[in-house]
């Protein structure tokens, strides 16, 4: 064992949350160390999460968009033996470039990186073991746990990563299956379900809740569900799988709680993720996960143990890269006494087809405020750009206070994740909806939805939401 190294901040995990925590510390002139078990920084986000899934989705969305825009003039035929690999041909390059970018960024910011597995031996000390078994010790006054999450390992679903897959192994499929059952109705489940449906796979979502993506605006989700079903998908809401088995031949057989049976070539188990804390030695410092299996933190991301912080997926939902990065940055600032501006309004992006985005208050939350709220709607199919692009689904809901102050936006449709940033800036800037009417946006663009939604609010009547109506 080599002697202890002293840093101001040690971060365990080099995913989006860990990177930002370390870089923030380094930018403030402190010595930052990241301990990462894989060879390349990036975490699940780069290896089998955000980056690979969005690369596959990009191909699927381009295909769907082209077919829609061509209005039937062009037809697209899939090659007979269509491999996932051929659809993500750029994936290796994208992942490698992203890893290089992150490594360069860490190097430029003088963040030290050790490859190894970390284990707490004291509140301020970690034992780090390399792949060759060599051990060294890292010490710091503050430690940030950013180890992410992994798919839940269900006792009743036989995940074999060949026929029954989870969200970490779904992209290791070599061939595009003819059919896929997706267990779960959360972000990961719906993103993969709509991507595979757009690629011509017969997809069935099975989820115990009344509707998928329950944390999002119901009207927005309804638009998504309609588009998913138009692409050939099926949603079995309010149903749970009672038994899943690979029949040993050609199909995964799923029996639901209503007695019905589904047969599919593959099954994706996407019912929850759990914190990756195995081997961290949390008990050595008196730390434990909460009842839901995640590390519990306060608003500064401090755990129950002074000097130990936790950020990103390891603390549970929303489990989005955007949120994780901001959590990492804020934890580092708090740990090192770096002044920080008040928290901004972080958007949520769900990369389904069509995509969904949200920022600020939702309709129900806004309506519960004293004085209630106003809601303006713009349907993409009624915008010039929407008609040009053959958009059938697409809705913007702009939420404002009674005096017109922008409070939030919920969007479903093409470019939703980009469009939402305009509302985010309006919220941060304390703007009123009039600004979207008085300052025109390019015509024809989907950005015009802001003007239409703002006019809907200003025109009043049908957008009004009584506080007790929520």
């Amino acid at each position, binding site marked *: 064992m080599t002697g202890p190294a002293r840093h101001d901040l040690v971060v365990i995990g080099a995913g989006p949350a860990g990177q930002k925590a370390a870089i923030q510390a380094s930018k403030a002139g402190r010595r930052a160390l990241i301990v990462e*078990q*894989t*060879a390349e920084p990036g975490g699940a986000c780069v290896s*089998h999460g955000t980056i690979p899934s969005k690369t596959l989705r990009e191909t699927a969305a381009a295909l769907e968009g082209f077919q829609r825009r061509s209005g039937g003039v062009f037809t697209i035929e*899939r090659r*007979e*033996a*269509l*491999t996932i*690999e051929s659809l993500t041909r750029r*994936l*290796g*390059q994208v*992942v*490698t470039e992203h890893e290089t970018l992150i490594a360069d960024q860490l190097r430029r910011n003088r963040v030290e990186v050790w*490859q190894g*597995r970390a284990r707490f031996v004291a509140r301020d000390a970690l034992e780090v*073991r*390399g*792949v*060759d*078994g060599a051990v060294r010790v890292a010490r710091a006054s503050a430690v940030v746990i950013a180890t992410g999450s992994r798919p839940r390992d269900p006792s009743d679903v036989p995940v*074999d*990563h*060949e*026929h029954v897959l989870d969200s*970490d*192994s779904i992209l*290791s*499929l*070599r*061939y*595009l299956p*003819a059919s896929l059952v997706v267990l779960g109705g959360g972000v990961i489940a719906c993103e993969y379900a709509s991507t595979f449906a757009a690629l011509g796979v017969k997809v069935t979502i099975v989820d115990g809740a009344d509707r998928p993506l329950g944390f999002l605006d119901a009207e927005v989700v309804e638009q998504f569900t309609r588009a998913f079903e138009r692409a050939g998908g099926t949603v079995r809401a309010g149903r749970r799988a009672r038994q899943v088995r690979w029949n*040993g*031949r*050609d199909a995964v057989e799923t029996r639901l709680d209503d007695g019905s049976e589904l047969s599919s070539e593959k099954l994706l188990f996407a019912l929850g993720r759990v914190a990756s804390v195995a081997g961290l030695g949390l008990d050595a410092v008196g730390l434990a996960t909460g009842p839901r299996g995640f590390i519990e933190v306060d608003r500064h991301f401090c755990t129950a143990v002074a000097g130990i912080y936790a950020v990103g997926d390891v603390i549970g939902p929303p489990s989005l890269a955007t949120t994780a990065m901001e959590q990492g940055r804020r934890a580092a600032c708090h740990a090192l006494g770096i002044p920080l501006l008040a928290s901004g309004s972080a958007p949520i992006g769900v990369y389904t087809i069509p995509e969904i985005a949200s920022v600020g208050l939702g309709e129900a939350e806004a309506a519960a405020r004293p004085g209630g709220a106003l809601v303006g709607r713009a349907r993409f199919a009624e915008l010039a750009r929407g008609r040009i692009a053959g958009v059938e689904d697409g809705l913007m809901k702009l939420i404002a206070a009674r005096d017109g102050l922008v409070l939030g936006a919920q969007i479903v449709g093409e470019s939703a994740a980009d469009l939402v940033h305009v509302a985010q800036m309006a919220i941060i800037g304390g703007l009123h909806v009039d600004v979207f009417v008085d300052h025109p946006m390019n015509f024809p663009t989907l950005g015009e939805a802001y003007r239409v939604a703002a006019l809907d609010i200003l025109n009043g009547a049908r957008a009004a939401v009584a506080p007790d109506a929520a």
Partner: protein
Amino acid sequence: MIVADPPADDLAVADELGRRIAAGALDLPAPPDAAARVIAAASRDDADLGRISELVRRDPALAAQLLRIANSSLFAAPAPIVSLQQAVLRLGLDGLRKAAHVVASRSAMLRVVGREAELRRIYRHSLLAAGWAQELARARRLPVEEAFLCGLLHDVGRAVLWQAAADLVAPDDVVAAAIDRHHAAAGAAVLATWPAGGAVAEVVRRHHDPAPEGAPARMIHLLALADHLAQVAPDQDIAPELPVAALAALALYPEDIDLLWSRRDAVRAFAQELG
């Protein structure tokens, strides 16, 4: 197989084999027609088990092999499978592709007259490597079928080069050293011509590259590790043997290796049943 640099005075043999590969002068073994047709048919979007069953029925050797594989523990048949139809159903599309590749590699690797013992040893090693590659892929969420094929086919170039070297007058150890040097390139040349072989050709070509870069780097490291594991006797301590670069690239720590190594009897049984 581990590559050793040939002695300087034996470079002429290595150069000659290298020249033959570059000139495309190798006699590349095509997979047997029936196996190739099964691989292609099982890879189609609209693959039909009935049609594949018909293809298999036309080739008695392939049918016999599929029956044997369908009865192996790999496919965990609850009762002995005696009919071809049962075998096809039991194997499923993924299993049929795997089985057809096993048949194809066997026919490609065991074809050189006079070298049967050496080639049988290489073939057994390839089956073991396929088993380990599959285990490693499962552990690291990499494509299981692709890993299996990489392991199975990584040394196919050796068989081709033993054939190509038949007319060279040189001691066996000199030829063997030259084959060590060039087998990866020769294997890639073979696979580039096989159905569904293109995907693994690049990995096979670079499977002795100690520091691979680019997209297939993880699969190359995986294959290097599988290649090593396949050479370790079951009662041996594996830790000192393993390439650290591959362990680091795949984030495999001593406890992960211990867990993998605990599966050695199952992997050997799997290879034995396939062989």
